[in-house]
């Protein structure tokens, strides 16, 4: 039902069941909020989005109130402004004053609100509680002093990840976001996906930075620093630097990284092609051996951690090969070092990933001893580093950077978005099973921003079902279906972050739907443009396989 309400003296149409907040956004009136998350149940906790509704004694939160026919709303009346200002002032009363040095300077929502509401002095003062910064976890760092308890991280951890690793503990002014018995974040339930960081309005949550160790390595004359870049990084990087993505960025980036002191730049997606080939081989083998299906992908370390901690019985279903980052990493230390005649130990191998969990991956298990990667940087850290080195992309001369490790195909790059890896595997798998190329190679069922995608591929008389899920909550549900026999798949691709690496926990802050769509488009466009669309046709991969045999 559609009716008219009045907003700031103007008539606006609204639908029954809509919240005031959504009507306001549609009308182009923005009200501030610290706890609202699109697509989540409103909690009405931050009270920033309050508006004045004629006839109601108190101010109402626009995020949780539905519109009613008679409503006359004022969104920026003095009463409302006073309330909003007071709330921000209260938060500032014990907020640390280190904005100059803060990771979120410039992208901090609290800072933004303080300036928007014209707060010029600290009217409420209190002693800053000395709270320990939680550095227990290799991927994520928590600074409770900067936390404003908006609860967004909890909702993401609960509703998207289904992990509930962090939650609100204690009550009232003693409440905090934490873990059980206030331990550090190095706990079973945290899969290090970093989605909590992406929604944090302040710097209460951030990645554990490898920034300094990388800078040190770059300045160390004895070391030979090299870097690999994940395909998922580029879209987000381009947005931040305000330049066009695609091939241009690739070349510029190569120049920039060399200027910063990296001796060689590699592209991780070449190894992704290798992984895709391997997965396809294994699928063919498993079908022949009549092995119990499905095969789960294993390139997402958060998903692997989840299986190890909670479903160890499914470990044998995980694809046993290395993740592309580690493959590139060991290739660099084992082969590239030899080619260049450099001692293995002298190579300082850095990986730039859109991911916080990759930091965990290199610190966990066998990799800790193998030491193939020395540091993982998130996209955010790389951006900061580019700024530090004063590199101005607009004046850079793009030079055709040699990519070190082979030619890359588009199929490996597709794995930057959930569903892409499956699509790539299917192309190779089809060709392996039938000896023919799949036409067309594009699989629409696996594209788009959805948490769960499925496709049935008919090869001969048999139909094989492939699935791609992103977000661990969705993955759990799918596991349940598999366990209860409700669904059957040949292969399941799991990405812990919703929609995959384009939305990874290490991406640029302020990733919204628009940004996701453009990153997705960039990957699909690349697939259109790239010459080599299938892993099994990538000559350098074949060459490489040949070389290590």
């Amino acid at each position: 039902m559609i009716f008219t309400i009045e907003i700031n003296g103007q008539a606006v149409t609204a639908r029954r069941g809509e919240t005031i907040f959504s009507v306001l956004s549609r009308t182009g009136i923005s009200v501030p909020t610290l706890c609202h998350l699109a697509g989540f149940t409103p909690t009405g906790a931050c009270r920033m989005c309050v508006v004045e509704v004629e006839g109601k004694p108190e101010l109402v939160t626009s995020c949780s109130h539905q519109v009613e026919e008679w409503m006359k709303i004022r969104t920026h009346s003095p009463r409302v402004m006073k309330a909003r200002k007071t709330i921000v002032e209260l938060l500032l009363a014990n907020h640390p004053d280190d904005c100059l040095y803060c990771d979120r300077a410039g992208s901090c929502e609290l800072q933004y609100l303080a300036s928007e509401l014209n707060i010029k002095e600290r009217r409420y003062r209190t002693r800053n509680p000395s709270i320990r910064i939680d550095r227990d976890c290799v991927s994520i760092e928590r600074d409770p002093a900067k936390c404003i308890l908006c609860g967004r991280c909890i909702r993401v951890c609960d509703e998207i990840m289904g992990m509930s690793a962090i939650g609100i503990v204690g009550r009232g002014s003693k409440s905090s976001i934490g873990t059980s018995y206030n331990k550090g974040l190095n706990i079973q339930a945290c899969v290090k996906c970093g989605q909590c960081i992406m929604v944090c309005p302040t710097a209460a949550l951030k990645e554990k930075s490898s920034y300094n160790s990388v800078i040190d390595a770059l300045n160390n004359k004895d070391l030979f620093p090299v870097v690999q870049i994940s395909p998922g990084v580029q879209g987000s990087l381009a947005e931040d630097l305000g330049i066009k993505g695609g091939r241009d960025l690739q070349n510029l980036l190569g120049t920039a990284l060399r200027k910063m002191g990296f001796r060689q730049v590699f592209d991780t997606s070449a190894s992704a092609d290798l992984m895709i080939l391997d997965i396809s081989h294994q699928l063919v083998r498993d079908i022949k051996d009549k092995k119990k299906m499905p095969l789960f992908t294993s390139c997402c370390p958060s998903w692997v951690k989840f299986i190890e901690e909670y479903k160890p019985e499914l470990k044998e279903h995980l694809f046993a090969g290395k993740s592309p980052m580690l493959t590139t990493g060991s290739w660099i230390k084992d082969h590239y070092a030899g080619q260049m005649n450099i001692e293995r130990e002298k190579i300082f191998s850095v990986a730039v990933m859109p991911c916080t969990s990759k930091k965990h991956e290199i610190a966990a298990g066998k990799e800790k001893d193998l030491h193939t990667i020395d540091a993982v940087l998130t996209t955010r850290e790389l951006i900061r580093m580019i700024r530090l080195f004063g590199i101005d992309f607009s004046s850079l001369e793009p030079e055709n950077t040699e990519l070190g490790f082979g030619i890359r195909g588009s199929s490996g790059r597709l794995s930057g978005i959930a569903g892409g890896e499956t699509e790539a595997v299917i192309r190779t798998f089809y060709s392996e099973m039938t000896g023919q190329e799949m036409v067309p190679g594009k699989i629409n069922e696996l594209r788009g921003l959805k948490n769960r995608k499925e496709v049935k591929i008919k090869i001969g008389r048999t139909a094989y079902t492939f699935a791609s899920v992103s977000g661990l909550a969705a993955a759990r549900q799918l596991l349940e279906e598999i366990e209860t026999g409700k669904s059957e798949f040949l292969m399941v691709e799991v990405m812990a972050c919703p929609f995959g690496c384009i939305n990874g926990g290490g991406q640029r802050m302020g990733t919204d739907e628009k940004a996701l769509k453009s990153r997705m488009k960039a990957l699909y466009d690349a697939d259109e443009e790239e010459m080599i669309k299938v892993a099994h046709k990538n000559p350098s991969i074949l060459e490489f396989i040949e070389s290590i045999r």
Partner: protein
Amino acid sequence: MDNRTEEKSFLLEKVLKNLTGEYQKEQLDKISLLRRDKVLSPVIYIGTGSCGIVAGSGKTTEAVRKYLAEKKIPATIIECGCIGYCSEEPIVDVHLPGKARISFRKVTEDKVESIFSALFSHNVDEDHVLGQYRSILSEAWAKVPYIDQIPFFALQNKIILKNTGHLSPLSIDDALAHGEYRSFYKTILNYTPEKVCDIVELSELRGRGGGGFSTGRKWKVALTTAGDQKYLICNAEESDPGAFMDRAIIEGDPHRLLEGIAIAAYAIGASYAYIYLRSDYPRALTILEEAIRQAKEYEILGQNIFGSGYNLNISIRQSAGAFVCGEETALIRSLEGQRGTPWAKPPYPAESGLFGQPTIVNNVETLANIPGIIEHGPSWFKGIGTKTSKGTKLFSLTGNVENSGCIEVPMGTLLSDIVHRIGGGTKGGKKLKAVQIGGPSGVCLPASNLDVEIGYESLQTVGAAIGSGGLSVLDETVCMVDLSRYFTEFLQKESCGKCIICREGTKRMLEILDGITRRPREESTHETLERFKGVVQLENLAEVLRDTSLCGLGQNSANPVLSSLKWFREEFEEHIFDRRCAASVCRDMRTFYIEVDICNGCNVCQKKCPENAIIGVVKAPHFIVENKCSGCGICFEVCKFNAIIVK
């Protein structure tokens, strides 16, 4: 048929199921025996509510038992609930055959022997006698006042607490003999749920938990909202400091509450009811558990009640200790096994509450009113009280007052009458300063402003609300700044922390008040100005808290401070500018001196001083080192020679 079974069937078949209320002569005789209106052997009533127990009634009971055993007196002991006069506990009543029931006050264990020995020889201990009950069946005691003539009771009108003190809370037979559950029977037999809602709406009963919304209308919303399973929740999470009316009802007459719950559940179509009981009420828990067990045994609760096909299951859930769970949505979250944080209404629980189903949350007192309304009809109830506030209201009268306890007065009673006539004025005749009404979210009214009627609207005219029903009398020894700080600290501690404004706002408010009551330092006028700015900000904060908080706790959290600021501004100013607390409560502002001429060097104060701020040798006058002294006042309390002086 043995005696017990026969009694049970008489109570169930002849008393409970008698809709006319007319009995034959022999039935009446039997009832009056069961009700103990007439006794054949001595009956002794001992108040064993929690208040009585703290006052020592447990030991008194033992002493009474011992006395009776020694003297071989065949008497029955009834451990009944509190009649409300808590300051006179332990109260012991004796009902001798043929004589009126007589009540004694402050009967500690050592007093039992003398009082009883005198009484059994028909002499009344005048120091301890409280009064006697009127009875047409027995002879009155000479020169003993009637209970209803004592000032504490004279103005009260007990309709909810009618049977409290007369029946054993552990006996459903007692309850049935006093006519309880007849309204429930009548409801199930004669009325549709709609009709019950109508009756309650017509009675104009309003929620006693603070909101004051029409109970009948609220029920109708739940009744007319579709749902697979509706729930009735009785809110007995009475964690306001200084409020214990719900406890008094449960400990005194649990079946009245169960009956109210049963009728309400029937009215909204709920077959499940929960009692959310405060965890610090162990005795109330025992009593309620037993009451539910007995009601099930008598098939008054359970499946197919009275053959009507209606089922009702009542279970008790103990709260886990969070004041905010008194708020209905927080309470529901807690019942669901979650953190007790309120949600933003709408949706109202009556539409979507416990497990997303239509749910009614009613306060204990509200529900305890229901049986009376069904029994006597809505117009009877409407006849009590004022134009917009009907019925009676329970208050916990506490603080610096001569007579304290739980009282039930009709709406419309003057606040000053409660303090001066029922309460008997301040304790020890000190000067009355204020009355705090409504618990931590309530307000302080000055002594000059007490000529106000009890009622939802009338109290609003002076900025107050009935709230929970706590009523604290404050004399001149109370510091209003300290009291505001106390309530603010309470609310700050109990804020759930969900919404920023309440979590941070109450904290800041407390810090500002802390600043006002903190120890004076060598300070420039600048700091005085800062403190004063703090007070200005208090008002600003309070306004935003009221406007913006998610639930009532936050919205009303500034009430104590604002009302104190309004009526006692000069006390605040005295604290801010003169750094002086006239009532000598704010310990940081007290300076202690030892009067050298009086101090004999007994050394007690030095030993007791927690700060080691007192120096001196035995048998010589001592001294207080001022900058070490924290102003706790322990020395003042322990000095037997009044040598310590506060300045």
